[in-house]
């Protein structure tokens, strides 16, 4: 008997019943000695404490990565990661990148043609030639 997947009954729609922030963890790596990490070090010294305080839902892991460029890696609920190299950036720029990682949802970046995406059926039904009053000739 072939194995058949369980049919999905409901579609997860974040934001309806309750909203769950998609970013669950933010790894922040810096380097003690390399010059490209100067901005990141200043960001950790000035902005990070406040940013971490305002986002208790996100887990922050700060650790050095010697001899490497500083990088911020966002881990998301769908298991994917987004990493942004913040080498030679100013602390204000790095804060923007941190907000970008917080706002992102972890999905792949794709082109979207129509602004509205829906899983509900059409409210007024789909026209079909075999039903309704037919066409006046």
């Amino acid at each position: 008997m072939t194995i058949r997947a369980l049919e999905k009954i409901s579609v997860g729609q974040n934001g309806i019943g309750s909203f769950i922030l998609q970013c669950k963890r933010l790894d922040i790596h810096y380097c003690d000695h390399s010059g490209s990490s100067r901005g990141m070090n200043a960001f950790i010294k000035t902005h990070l404490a406040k940013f971490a305080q305002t986002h208790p839902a996100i887990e922050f892991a700060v650790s050095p990565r010697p001899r490497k460029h500083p990088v911020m890696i966002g881990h998301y609920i769908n298991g994917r990661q987004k990493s942004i190299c913040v080498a030679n950036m100013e602390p204000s720029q790095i804060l923007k990148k941190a907000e970008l990682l917080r706002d992102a949802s972890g999905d792949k970046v794709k082109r979207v043609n129509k602004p509205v995406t829906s899983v509900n059926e059409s409210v007024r039904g789909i026209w079909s030639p075999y039903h309704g009053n037919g066409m006046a000739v």
Partner: protein
Amino acid sequence: MSRSLLRSLLELRAPSTSRPAAQFRLPVRSLSTTPLRRNSPTPRNATAPSSIPTNPAEAASLATESRSQIPQAAEALYPRIPQQVNPPTSESRATIAQLLPLLRTQPAHYLTAHIWGRPYLVTAGDQIRLPFKMPGVVPGDVLRLDRASTLGSRDFTLKGSPYIDERLFECRATVLGTETEPMRIKIKTKRRQRRNKQVRSKHHFTILRISEVSINGPEAVSL
């Protein structure tokens, strides 16, 4: 704010022509569309006229989940501009009183919400990717969309000219976050010029989830 004013004036001059079945019209004039926000980080202080008193208490009472008071900064960025409601004509008053309850009883409803002047035909649970990054909102904020041009169900449609009275319906959207598009590279060249310039663009867009669309009875406008 000024840009949206211009667009809504345009709409006033060209009333919609199609006459779908069983419609009724509500003469409502409005100046602009204002999503009402719940909580927000400290956005930049916009130049919106803050003279118009907003009534957060009333909005908060409607909101189901208990959120912190709307910070002053958000007020400055998104002031709630009430609609100028013309007194309904006797004919529209009659149709509303009679047909609106029928519309409410139908199972599914759709709504053409206008956000910053642009229409989005949505039902409850849809996701909108706005063509811009909305400043001053944080994922998790709830917006109250109070400008809608049509509201309908399977057999009935309520059309506003240009907008429906905001007291007739409630539509809330949650900000999910921001998404971005794949990097688009435009190569700009001139003839007989070997050198070409690459212009990269990768915009960010805010994502909303329509969490709730509900219609109030005619008593909302005391008919």
